[in-house]
């Protein structure tokens, strides 16, 4: 099977989310990549070095600079004449573009796969991860989004793909990128971090969140996450949210502070290698999934922990 992986990037470098998708695609067959963007030649050169990659299709056009689905989808559809499957990371961009491609190909997309069980059989979570379905497709072409935490990351070196220019990109003119507010942070990205420190509603307000959670995260070189309750209460912006409707993470160590462990939150972090929970309620559901638990007042415990590390 010949597969095509849509590369997530910022026109400067390859985003980590791509690497797990390459691994998933390699379980289906030969892996080709599509780098669609504007002034993104460096991305294609970098992507060609990813282990196991064959051809890298480079579509460099001003209309592709902001990954607008209206412009990217037809380009991918044109490449599908020569490919049997196209895979995207289940990131906000991947989830935005993939179904548009699927419908244009008259294919039923398989969302958020956790494993490849055969050339046409996959597992995927349903009901916020409360059930895992094994599905078999009868479509001739496959359109798939991949849950990043479910597959190992392909090595960023060792590959010797060839970069080939693709033409035919054009601006549909029906949508326009206006602007973005992307939080600048010196901390690692949530979905790529080895250690995550997350805070919940028990922090009571935004000031506490920053003064309690962030020093610990900085000490550990960790990313900062939050429960939906903390985000809804306005302690931190929405992109901090870990959970079924937020980010799905699986770091080496996940430290949950003042998070009770609602099913919604657990769905987003339960694949972490080690879970540490700090909560004053010893019956909190978070302790049922935590490897290490400490019961007590976070306002005393966390500063003490930060100091002693």
């Amino acid at each position: 099977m010949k597969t095509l992986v849509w590369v997530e990037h910022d026109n400067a470098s390859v985003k980590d989310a791509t690497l797990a998708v390459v691994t998933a695609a390699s379980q289906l067959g030969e892996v080709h990549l599509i780098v669609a963007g504007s002034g993104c030649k460096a991305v294609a050169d970098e992507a060609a070095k990813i282990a196991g990659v064959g051809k890298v299709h480079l579509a460099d056009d001003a209309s592709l600079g902001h990954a607008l689905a209206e412009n990217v989808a037809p380009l991918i559809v044109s490449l599908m004449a020569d490919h049997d499957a196209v895979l995207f990371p289940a990131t906000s961009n991947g989830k935005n573009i993939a179904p548009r491609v699927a419908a244009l190909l008259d294919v039923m997309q398989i969302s958020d796969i956790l494993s490849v069980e055969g050339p046409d059989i996959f597992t995927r979570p349903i009901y916020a991860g409360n059930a895992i379905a094994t599905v078999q497709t009868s479509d001739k072409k496959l359109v798939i989004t991949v849950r990043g935490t479910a597959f190992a990351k392909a090595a960023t070196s060792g590959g010797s793909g060839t970069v080939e220019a693709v033409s035919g990109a054009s601006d549909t003119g029906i949508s326009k990128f206006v602007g973005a507010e992307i939080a600048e942070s010196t901390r690692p990205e949530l979905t790529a971090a080895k250690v995550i420190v997350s805070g919940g509603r028990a922090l009571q307000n935004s000031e506490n969140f920053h003064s309690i959670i962030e020093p610990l995260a900085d000490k550990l070189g960790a990313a900062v996450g939050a429960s939906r309750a903390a985000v809804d209460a306005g302690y931190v912006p929405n992109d901090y949210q870990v959970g079924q409707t937020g980010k799905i993470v699986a770091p080496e160590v996940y430290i949950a502070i003042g998070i009770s462990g609602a099913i919604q939150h657990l769905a987003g972090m339960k694949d972490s290698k080690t879970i540490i929970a700090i909560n004053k309620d010893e019956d909190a559901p978070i302790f049922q999934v935590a490897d290490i638990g400490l019961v007590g007042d976070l306002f005393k415990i966390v500063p003490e922990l930060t100091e002693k590390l």
Partner: protein
Amino acid sequence: MKVLVPVKRVLDYNVKPRVKADGTGVDLANVKMSMNPFDEIAVEEAIRLKEKGAATEVVVVTIGVAKAETDVLLTARAMGADRAILIATDDEVEPLGVAKLLKAVCDEEQPGLVILGKQAIDDDSNQTGQMLAALLGWPQGTFASKLEVSGDRVVVTREVDGGLETVDLKAPAIVTTDLRLNEPRYATLPNIMKAKSKPVAKKTIADYGVDVSPRLKTLKTVEPAKRSAGIKVPDVDTLVAKLKEMGVAK
């Protein structure tokens, strides 16, 4: 501008899904069913557009069991939708099939805007809005946390990885809702009583001449692997020692 809002009847979000012992799916017998929460947000947004004078009519549509007429479609009308369309079927229709049916509805209704939930909380597919946009050749503003409509311009602020992004779409357009777009109003009892007189057009899939035969077959459904509870440590010093053991702290 007419606004079309497709809604789905799903297992109520407060009910914990139970996987059937024979692995054939999630048990939906005798459990509470409600409107998909993201779709409630979509209905609310459409009604607000009408209240602001940006929309002229709000039409809701569902594809599903006949009972939807007296629960989710009634709720939507009680919230403020003007009329409803029920495309009755007892079969599960996949997002691609739903998108094809909705395209046929759009061809008839000619809405200027379609607002959908970003995903249904049962199958978690997150596909229908984008697919409908593709089939119609319309622009899409997915995962919206803010929506502004003026004339034929639809400006959507989207929740994306790392923050927010704003796109400017040319109507007719598709918008899918994220959690923070609004807080839906409750359907009050007096409004529910009044809503009963708002019209519901009853249709079948055959009326639209669309092939919705499934492409995916679910071979089995299982519960996810369970994590077991670990140890509790008595104090911060023991936790620090554990973190050092794991190599997380020096």
